[in-house]
């Protein structure tokens, strides 16, 4: 009886840890899919889309996760195939530097104007 209880506890805990790991994998996969743009229905992420393209990408991401590729390696694979556009969060490179730097420049420019105004008002 004791042995039976022991086996039951072990198998239950193994099943629980498997469930936990599946949940973790699914969260990781969803995080990646939400950051990939569907090229067929371009307002949607692959996660939200039901298109043939999106379902193929879902399979590919699954395959790459099973091959133990990291999140960045999966993005790189897709970037190589489809360009930066496929990722919602584009990296900093020669094609995207204006996109990244313009808000900072505008912020600094605006800040300088406000600072100057405050100085003038103080005088």
């Amino acid at each position: 009886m004791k042995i039976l209880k022991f086996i039951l506890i072990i198998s239950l805990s193994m099943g629980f840890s498997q469930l936990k790991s599946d949940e973790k994998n699914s969260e990781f996969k969803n995080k990646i899919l939400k950051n990939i743009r569907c090229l067929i229905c371009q307002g949607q992420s692959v996660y939200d889309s039901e298109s043939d393209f999106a379902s193929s990408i879902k399979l590919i991401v699954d395959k790459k996760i099973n091959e133990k590729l990291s999140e960045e390696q999966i993005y790189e694979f897709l970037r190589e195939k489809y360009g930066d556009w496929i990722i919602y969060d584009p990296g900093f490179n020669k094609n995207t530097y204006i996109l990244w730097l313009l808000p900072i420049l505008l912020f600094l420019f605006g800040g300088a104007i406000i600072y100057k105004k405050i100085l003038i008002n103080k005088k």
Partner: protein
Amino acid sequence: MKNKLTLIILFIFLSFCFVILYKGLNNSNTYIPKINHEKNIPVFKAKDLNSNTYIDSEKIFDENIYYIINIWASWCIPCKKEHPLLMELSKIQSVKLIGLNYRDNLNNAKKFINELGNPYAQILIDKDGTLGVEFGAYGVPETFIIDKNKKIIKKFVGPINKETVEEIKLIIK
């Protein structure tokens, strides 16, 4: 003087915004991936439609010639439209056409080929569309040119037309 300068800066800023927005209006809002640099062909294993056996990509592209990969499906209407042009291209000796049957019913695919003719030296099955992704495709039809160095050098999205055929002929000449 100060007001004049402010006006000039404002005018330049608004003109800049106008030009950007006007250019944006003329651009298509549908993104089509371009090939800016040569890409290596993917390494894969795929099932052949006729023999129903798996073939390695190295065996498919083992000759020192140009290859044309055409992604097609029997349910795809533009594929029917471009088919006669593929038949024309298949007559050129220095090029081999490889068909990639995309998410199709295999019986319908065979029927399509029997009715319209077979321009392909080999037809590979891409049942779940993942092989298409390996090539960087996102729909049907799409056509890729592979040079003698086994690099993808050109990609045509949508059905090929007479101008495309002329362009392909120039590339593989």
